């Protein structure tokens, strides 16, 4: 079943990158792409019941990482929609569940919070629907672990185009750090005051730090943030990315919300340059692939070597007139073959394998 991981992953990423191009987090946009790609057919084909179950399970675990960091907000929304859609269209009965690991729960709750804060009601609704439909296993780990040590482990490789661009400055300077800084500052001033009081020196000599450091820092960060918003705002002007939700915006806190939205927006949609770069990269890859397979057009190259026996036989048989003789010779060790049986078709040797009853 493992051989399906790669194609399923690539189908999911195809869907999500189309979703990314819409620059929207609306469910309708997702559903349109889903239908256009005929995604439900991923479950079609003749499969035994247990095969179907195993495949459903594999699809769920493969789609799961997209709702988690390091993916950006928009991709995570797409990932959530994808899980919702896959869960509901799978053909296994009862349905295979989405396994959520405890370690991921915190970030999923934060993600949901972000969606609430920016009033993406469709995201909230679908998240809640999955929970109330009991579509989730609350587990230790996202998949069962059985110590499958492999020479070439198949881990989930993060799709770079979907990665979140970290807002380092914002992460670094929060209200708490500002408060902390002003506290330290205050303390520092007090200590300085006691020193000057005892020694009688003028305090300008040890005035090494800007007096209102906190306010100053805050200003700088705000200016930077505004500039950033302006830049990214220009970039996504064409899309309706900032559309808050189903026509329920309250005019009262619109300015504050706009600010908030802008910060989320910059998190979610500031990917355009990186995305195109990686697409170019993918183009190169495809070109390479094309040139590699050029010499055997239309045929999938198997990179497995033929067995030693097969190669030897081929080498020998290619030597024209030797052919007949060799064929005879190679049969001589078939001691048990009776004379009259000789022209019979080679028998299928697949009779009994001691260890494997399958």
């Amino acid at each position, binding site marked *: 079943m493992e051989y399906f991981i790669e194609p399923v992953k690539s189908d999911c990423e195809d869907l999500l990158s189309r979703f990314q191009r819409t620059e929207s987090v609306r469910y309708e946009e997702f559903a349109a792409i889903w239908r256009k790609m005929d995604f439900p*057919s991923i*479950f079609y084909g003749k499969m035994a019941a247990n095969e179907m179950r195993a495949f459903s399970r594999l699809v769920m675990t493969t789609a799961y990482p997209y709702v988690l960091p390091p993916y950006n907000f928009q991709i995570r929304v797409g990932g959530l929609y994808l899980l919702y859609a896959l869960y509901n269209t799978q053909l296994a009965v009862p349905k295979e569940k989405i396994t959520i690991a405890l370690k991921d729960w915190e970030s999923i709750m934060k993600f*949901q919070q972000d969606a609430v804060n920016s009033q993406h009601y469709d995201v909230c609704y679908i998240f809640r629907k999955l929970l109330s439909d009991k579509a989730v296993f609350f587990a*230790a780990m996202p998949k069962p672990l*059985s110590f499958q040590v492999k020479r070439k482990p198949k881990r989930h490789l993060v799709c770079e185009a979907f990665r979140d661009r970290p807002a380092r400055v914002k992460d670094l300077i929060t209200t708490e750090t500002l408060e902390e800084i002003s506290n330290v500052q205050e303390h520092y001033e007090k200590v300085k005051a006691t020193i000057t009081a005892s020694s009688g020196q003028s305090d300008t000599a040890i005035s090494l730090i800007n007096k209102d450091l906190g306010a100053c820092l805050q200003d700088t960060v705000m200016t930077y943030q505004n500039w950033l918003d302006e830049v990214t705002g220009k970039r996504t002007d064409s899309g309706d990315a900032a559309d808050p939700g189903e026509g329920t915006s309250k005019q009262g806190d619109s300015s504050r919300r706009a600010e908030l939205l802008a910060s989320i927006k910059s998190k979610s949609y500031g990917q355009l340059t990186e995305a195109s770069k990686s697409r170019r990269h993918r183009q190169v890859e495809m070109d390479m692939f094309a040139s590699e397979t050029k010499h055997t057009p239309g045929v999938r190259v198997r990179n497995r070597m033929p067995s030693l026996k097969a190669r030897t036989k081929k080498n020998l048989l290619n030597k024209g007139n030797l052919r007949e003789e060799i064929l005879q010779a190679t049969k001589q060790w078939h001691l048990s073959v009776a004379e009259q049986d000789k022209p019979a078709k080679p028998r299928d040797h697949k009779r009994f394998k001691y260890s494997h009853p399958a």
Partner: protein
Amino acid sequence: MTSVDSFSQKENMAASNTAGCSTPSNDDNDVPTYEYIDINTKPFHFGTFENLWKETLNPKYYSFHDVHQETEDEEFGQEMGIPPETVNELKVICSLDTLRCCPENQPPVTDVVPADPGLMTLRMRKRRQDYKQTLHREFTCRQDLYATELESLGIGKKPLNPEDMLPEGEMTITVNVLFPLIVERFKQVRARQTLQVLMSHKLTQLRDAICCLQDLQVSGEFSNTPDTAPEFISKDLYKSAFFYLEGIFYNDMRYPEASDLSQTIREWAASHNFPTFQTAKMEETTFRDLKIKVGYPYLYCHQGDCEHVVIFTDIRLAHRDDCLDRKLYPLLTYKHRMISRKCAICNLYISRWVTSNDSLAPTDPCLFCEACFRTFHYDPQGNKLGQFLAFPYVDAGAFN
């Protein structure tokens, strides 16, 4: 800056029980994390882990009962501060109809891969199916069929007696028990059985659920008294066993005649400058008490030297679709099917006897079913014919 933050904090407060859930405290190392990615976790305390999930979740999401959709929608509207019309609108926007690709009255043919599929997955499946069709005979894996059968036995099963109902919030643990590698035929396939146990189970309950051929062996030569043979199986004779989990030997000391099998190992370890191992009693330990790694190979040892690798593969809150009859746990969900060896004479029935130094048999040793063994080796009065040694034989397929 400050205003934005206090605003979002207010929102956080309001939203913290959206979906009725909060986030677990992250300063705890009993949140399972990978030690090696996709292979095994670091050790964590099962009981604490259970509590962390339960503190975090609204019980209605792991209850075995349906969530009432209308009250759910109502609550959603209230928490989001949106009017019922908007919720209804959302319901339509997010309905499952949006995912359907064919008209409702024309359900798709789901067992055929569509021609010229766009999805990579389907192209792969098509290739595989086309290849399968070129094979001369249909290849159905009996192992898989049997697995489906077993798996479906437990699904959604409800107890006859309501008292046997699994409590909501109970956790199930999946355990793989591998067959010992000392048997030649297990070297290529990692034959295993998979069991589901409950968090509240004692280790001894898992022990009793593990089926191993060595427990059924009967030792001794019985050619003179074939009727007395099946009375002493090894399980009743040698009752000691232990689990070795994260440096602790859990010994089964339920029976007075049981001995501490780990003693030799511990003494050897002590004399070779190993850190000292601890011991505990299997019958006094529940899974809730364990602090171990998920995905990591541990050991079960019984019959003195029959060693099984034991791996805890999964642990999660029980789900509505699980087997809900508490009495059926530990639940066998998978078992490798063994080949049965047939009688050398009739080649029809499963062997019950193995003979040695047998002048009547074509091979040494030779396998016989009960009927053939009796008619061949004894006269109608039950007198032994000829010289031979006879041992009871327990077939690997005995558990199938």
